[in-house]
């Protein structure tokens, strides 16, 4: 870090601090949010339900065998740690084909999709997501025998992390 870059850096930091302060003021909060991003939270879980139904393909989900760990409160909504693991015993001839994570109220609720192969021999992932508000997280995993496992977790979040 050279000293000549210091003024630039300071200005950037001040700008960022100003933006953060602006967002924190109750009166200008909505306006600042409106200017900063076009992201809008889903009004309900309809889109999440649609994504889940598409993944399920008519199969009734099994409420055991999949563990989803999420913090009850998101300290930092821009990076909420999630951990998903298939606890159903896997074998050479039984593996997890596909796993999705849905953040119900995010503008685009499908957070991500994983695919595994018979060679993986495990189905365990961890990731970090940004959440626009408090919501329920869902994980769905399809096994090679056609079963779909489901797990849910609710995360409380103070401010949105999607403008990040």
């Amino acid at each position, binding site marked *: 870090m050279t000293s000549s870059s210091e003024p630039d850096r300071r200005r950037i930091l001040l700008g960022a601090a100003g933006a953060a302060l602006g967002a924190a003021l109750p009166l200008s909060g909505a306006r600042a949010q409106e200017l*900063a991003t076009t992201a809008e939270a889903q009004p309900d879980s309809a889109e999440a339900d649609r994504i889940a139904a598409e993944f399920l393909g008519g199969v009734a989900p099994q409420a055991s065998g999949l563990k989803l760990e999420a913090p009850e409160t998101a300290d930092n909504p821009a990076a909420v740690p999630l951990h998903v693991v298939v606890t159903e015993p896997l074998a050479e001839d039984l593996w997890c084909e596909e796993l999705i994570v849905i953040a119900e109220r995010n503008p685009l609720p499908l957070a991500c999709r994983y*695919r*595994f192969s018979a060679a*993986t021999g495990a189905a365990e992932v961890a990731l970090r997501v940004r959440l626009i508000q408090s919501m329920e997280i869902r994980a769905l995993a399809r096994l090679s025998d056609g079963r779909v496992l489901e797990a849910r977790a609710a995360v409380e979040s103070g401010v949105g992390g999607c403008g*990040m």
Partner: protein
Amino acid sequence: MSRPPRIWMSSATPAQGEVVRVRAQMQHVMESGFRLDWNGAPLERNLLTRFEARLNETLLIEWEPGPSISQNPYVEFAFAARESGTLRMLWLDDQGMRLEAEREILVAPA
């Protein structure tokens, strides 16, 4: 942007069938395409679109992240070590970035 990803592996010399855990974090802006600049113009979407890990040529995991994934995406996965070889990891983004990393895996003979 193209700094090497940070990678941690639970073991580089696992026993046959031992589950190896891998954690990797790379630097990426994960621009969602929803944000506006100071003039109100949308910032161009630039998301990580794909991560994959292979042991030699065998696919272990592929990941398609969406805009809900945090900046500097963190990926953790596990696999059963059934053969020795090279663990190859690959990251791709919306703007053509291609990042690769490798780690050698030596499965201890039974």
